[in-house]
């Protein structure tokens, strides 16, 4: 979490207009979700990996680790989806017998599974692109420009900020507990964790009042005005994005035999 956030502020694409990055993200993820072909998904995964590692300069080891996280979940999920349990063994390309039943894959379920797996991974890599190259406050400013309701925008602003405040407090409480051997074994560990959660609740309650006071002290009247940066879109980048995504769309439609 913290490291993703670190790269969001320290990458080679940070000065690029957030709108352009959001455009690239939105176009690519919709392509990835709408075109069901292995080629398209693979192309998206490759494209995003290239953009993240080569253009943004995020270390490939770190990116690989990030991809392994959802990858592992996806593999387990997709395998259970692909398996079919039937009485008839014909149509199964691989199976093990379980008494009168057979557990295995059909060629159709195998196809669907691989497709789903790659499509999900492609979408995840799009999300990683956005969160590894664009600071949250810039995403919020794009949301504001898109006329997303103010409530959502403000909640996002506050939640994002206070995640880190809470993390810091939780970290301090945890260290203080560990120093007094609060986590020396499982039972004290559970006990300490419970206390930590309770103290976080109380802390948040008291702090929310203080935060509100501080906002009101600066004439808060219920809305957060934003200072949008008036960087303008670079025409070159927008054209490049459109070209890349256009190429991706035609290429994968062609490879999928639709064109």
């Amino acid at each position: 979490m913290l490291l993703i956030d670190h790269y969001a502020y320290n990458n080679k694409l940070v000065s690029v207009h957030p709108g352009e990055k959001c455009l690239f993200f939105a176009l690519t993820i919709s392509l990835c979700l709408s075109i069901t072909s292995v080629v398209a998904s693979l192309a998206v995964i490759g494209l995003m990996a290239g953009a993240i590692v080569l253009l943004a300069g995020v270390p490939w080891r770190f990116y690989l680790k990030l991809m392994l996280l959802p990858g592992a979940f996806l593999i387990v999920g997709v395998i259970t989806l692909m398996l079919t349990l039937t009485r008839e063994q014909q149509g199964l390309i691989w199976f093990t017998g379980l008494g009168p039943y057979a557990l295995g894959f059909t060629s159709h379920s195998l196809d669907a599974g691989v497709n789903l797996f790659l499509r999900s991974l492609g979408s995840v890599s799009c999300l990683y692109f956005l969160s590894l190259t664009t600071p949250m406050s810039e995403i919020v400013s794009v949301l504001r420009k898109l006329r997303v309701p103010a409530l959502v925008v403000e909640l996002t602003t506050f939640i994002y900020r206070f995640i880190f405040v809470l993390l810091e407090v939780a970290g301090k409480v945890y260290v203080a507990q560990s120093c007094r051997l609060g986590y020396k074994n499982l039972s004290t560990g559970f006990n300490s964790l419970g206390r930590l959660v309770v103290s976080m609740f109380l802390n948040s309650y008291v702090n929310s009042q203080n935060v509100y006071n501080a906002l009101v002290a600066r004439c808060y009247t219920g809305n957060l005005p934003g200072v949008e940066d008036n960087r303008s879109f670079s025409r070159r980048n927008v054209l490049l994005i459109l070209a890349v995504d256009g190429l991706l769309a035609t290429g994968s439609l062609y490879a999928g035999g639709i064109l």
Partner: protein
Amino acid sequence: MTNIIEARGLVYIYPNGTSALNNLSLAIKKGQRIALLGANGAGKSTLLLHLNGILRPKKGSIVFQGQAVDYRHRSLLALRKNVGIVFQEPDNQLFTANVLHDITFGPLNLGLTREMALAKSRKAMRETETVSLENKPTHFLSFGQKKRVAIAGVLAMEPQVIIFDEPTAGLDPKMALKIMDLLHQLSEQGKTLIISTHDVDLAYSWADYVYFIKEGSIAGEGTPQELFLRQDLLTACDLYCPWIIEIYRAMINTGLANQNQQVPANKNELLKLINESPVRFNTQRIKAIHNCLG
């Protein structure tokens, strides 16, 4: 000179029944450097929240430039525009991850245009030396940096009165000195400054008028040079004697200075007093001073 802000007979009781202010009155003149001193829990922070209209007294009133605050929306906004408050805990004050967004928050709330708000924010950032932090998220800043951003957020609104609740608490000595330098600068610009602290040395050499607060009311007020000489009052308010006063006393007791001389207001004046002392130091005198200081 006229009073810029006054508190008249404030009484405040927290919802849980804690009586925090007890018929407290004070009157602050334009351009003064005020220090409120008192032990933890004396009611300093509660008082400061009243001066900016965040808490509403059960009894009594706040008077700003001769007009009593009536707690309607308009008059509250007018008060808060003119009385800024820098809270003790910067994490409570910074509400967004973006430094510039946070600093422009106040000026934009005042209805300034984007350009004006940015211009004032940039000026405040130069004064607080936070220009280089503009593109850093607030959660990666150090405590001292957060504090300075929080101060910039208040300065950008250009209030006439600026309140600092424990401005140096939690800062290292160098950063504390920097903040005090900033306070001096602000004072020279003609701002009225109010700080709360329990650091007697800081208050002694910085303030031109001090209030001692004890259990929610004023236990004493005056210039630091007269008030800090009253040992009984200091003891009653759980405050220490500033070291400058201790040295001054020791000098009087050992004959290095006499009672008619002016009480030194800061370190430099004390050094001057020592240099001009008619009596030269010798080992015996130094021993006597040692004994005096215990």
